[in-house]
């Protein structure tokens, strides 16, 4: 019996909600795959960390009322250190032990000198999950997408080092907080916006020298279910209030969310899909 370890890197900007979505991902996965041949179980501190994140999300439903709007970002403290989440993966009938290590990169590292560590992590990872803040991608004609989702820096991370393709990789674009667009029937628009905004990376990974080593997919997520984007706060001239300095420079200062119905529930959707894609890819890798 041997132990095989796989690395999954969560890559996304500050306050995208990477850790929160990981909590939702595991929660959904266990519900959807109960009775299946593959089970995932968190190990050690990971259990507490994910529970704390889930509690943080659930708390929104206990403290807010229908009709309120609120600034979600103020409720969620971003991680300031790299965090590893460890899982055991058991495959029915297999003698091998599989370990999954999710590495959650603090968003601000993307905009700092620590970015070279991220580049090294990317080389080692089997799966890279690019989290996309969907309201910034879609609202105001995507004017704040670059400032939030750091597309240009991601372009350099994916193109600067060909060692990235020394092992086969799965690259998942995961648009988060898609509730508004899902209920408005606009998910096709979300998909097209991802393809347009991440065009440099997608075309680069599609180059004939690279495409055989990379699998790419877009798997959107409804992070909380009944919480929807409301608006970016504007000033009296009708312009979005923008941060003019600090680590969130050029981003909208206040992003408001609201409940979409009178009996809101924590009801994430499709959160299991990135995990299902990941496990399917890893199964192909070990075959």
């Amino acid at each position: 019996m041997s132990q095989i370890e796989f690395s999954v890197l969560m890559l996304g900007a500050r306050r995208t909600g990477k850790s929160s979505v990981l909590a939702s991902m595991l929660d959904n996965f266990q519900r959807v795959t109960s009775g299946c041949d593959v089970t995932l179980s968190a190990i050690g501190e990971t259990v507490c960390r994910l529970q704390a994140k889930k509690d943080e999300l659930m708390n929104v439903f206990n403290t807010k009322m229908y009709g309120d709007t609120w600034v979600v970002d103020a409720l969620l403290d971003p991680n300031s250190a790299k965090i590893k989440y460890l899982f055991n993966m058991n495959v029915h009938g297999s003698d091998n032990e599989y370990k999954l290590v999710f590495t959650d990169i603090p968003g601000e590292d993307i905009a700092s000198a620590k970015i070279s560590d991220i580049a090294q992590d990317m080389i080692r990872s089997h799966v890279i999950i690019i989290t996309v803040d969907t309201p910034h991608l879609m609202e105001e004609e995507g004017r704040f997408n670059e400032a939030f989702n750091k597309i240009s820096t991601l372009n350099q991370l994916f193109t600067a080092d060909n060692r990235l393709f020394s092992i086969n990789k799965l690259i998942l674009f995961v648009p988060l907080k898609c509730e508004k667009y899902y209920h408005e029937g606009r998910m096709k628009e979300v998909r097209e916006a991802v393809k347009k905004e991440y065009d440099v990376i997608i075309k680069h990974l599609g180059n004939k020298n690279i495409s055989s080593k990379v699998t790419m997919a877009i798997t959107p997520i409804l992070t909380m279910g009944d919480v929807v984007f409301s608006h970016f706060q504007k000033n009296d001239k009708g312009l979005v209030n923008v941060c003019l300095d600090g680590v969130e420079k050029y981003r909208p200062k206040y992003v408001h969310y609201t409940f979409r119905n009178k009996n809101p529930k924590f009801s994430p959707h499709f959160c299991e899909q990135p995990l299902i894609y990941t496990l399917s890819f890893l199964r192909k890798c070990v075959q």
Partner: protein
Amino acid sequence: MADFNILMVGGRRTGKTSVLASMLDSYQKRFAGHDIVLSSKVETSYILEDKILSLKNVFATHCFDDEFDPDIDASPNMGKVEYTFYMSIAGKSGSKYELRFTDIPGEWFVDDYKEHEMEVNQLFAECNIMIIAVDTPHLIEDENVSLGYGRFHDEFNRPAFFTNTIMDKFLVDQDAKFASDKMVLFMPLKCEKYMREGRSYIIPQAIEKGYANLIAHLKGDNFRGHCTIAVLPILTIGNFVFSRFGENESGEVVLHPTRRIPLKSLYTFPDQRSYKNGFAPEYCEQPLVYILAYILKMVRKANDSSQNGTWKERMKKLLSFFGILRMANDQQMVVALNSISSMMIKSKEKGFQIIQNAINL
């Protein structure tokens, strides 16, 4: 030492770093998926991203009918700044070349020359290409008819930086004492107004007059066959045009308290549709396309000279142009460079002009 060295010069606050960021961004978008990949060193990528965001922010923080001085270079570099771009073949290890862009303040050539002489000489000796960033509204507006260019150009863009002595250092291999093949790219920035008005043709005309001494020197007998000169106008932001220099109540341009340049350069959005379309730079990839075309020509020249030259000359070139010689053996890179070179814009209607074509671009 980098494989290829590019010097960026120009007047204070012309926005050199911003346009360098825009050049890379535009190249990556224009040639996404191409075999030749250009990318910035990841350690400095967030600095370049911040420059792009400062250009985009013009639209986010103003209404469509605002007229304002964007001051997009609010924190100009006071010293030398280096940015490294990598050129590689997508997915291929080992085929990686370094392009070093050095942004130096023009003052190093004149006011502070003695203090920086050694460093400037070294940079010039290593440099293959010089990019001269030009603030186009200062070059063209408020024309001094007898000169054929704007009355604030000399003070703002400071063409007097480029004395014959300085340029000889750039054009002559200091060790070998022979003229080496170089390229000078004039890069007029913020050309939106003239492009929209269908007057792009006036840009190269004004460059030839505004930099007449420099161009005459580069066209001289010693350098004519060794220095390629081109004008590559750029729409730095797109959908955002120069309006006027700030004036007082009498309609006179208000000047800077210590320099004889306008205190404010006011810009506006041409119409609501342009404002809505937002950040849309054009031709920003062209300086990089010209640089790649130059590299290809030099690689071919190196291949030829390695067959014709004496052993001593070949060694000298090997040491001087290590990147070029290394690339000469990289057939895949040469083929890919060829396809990029074919994308050079040379249209005079768009204000592009090759003034001197020593390497037959």
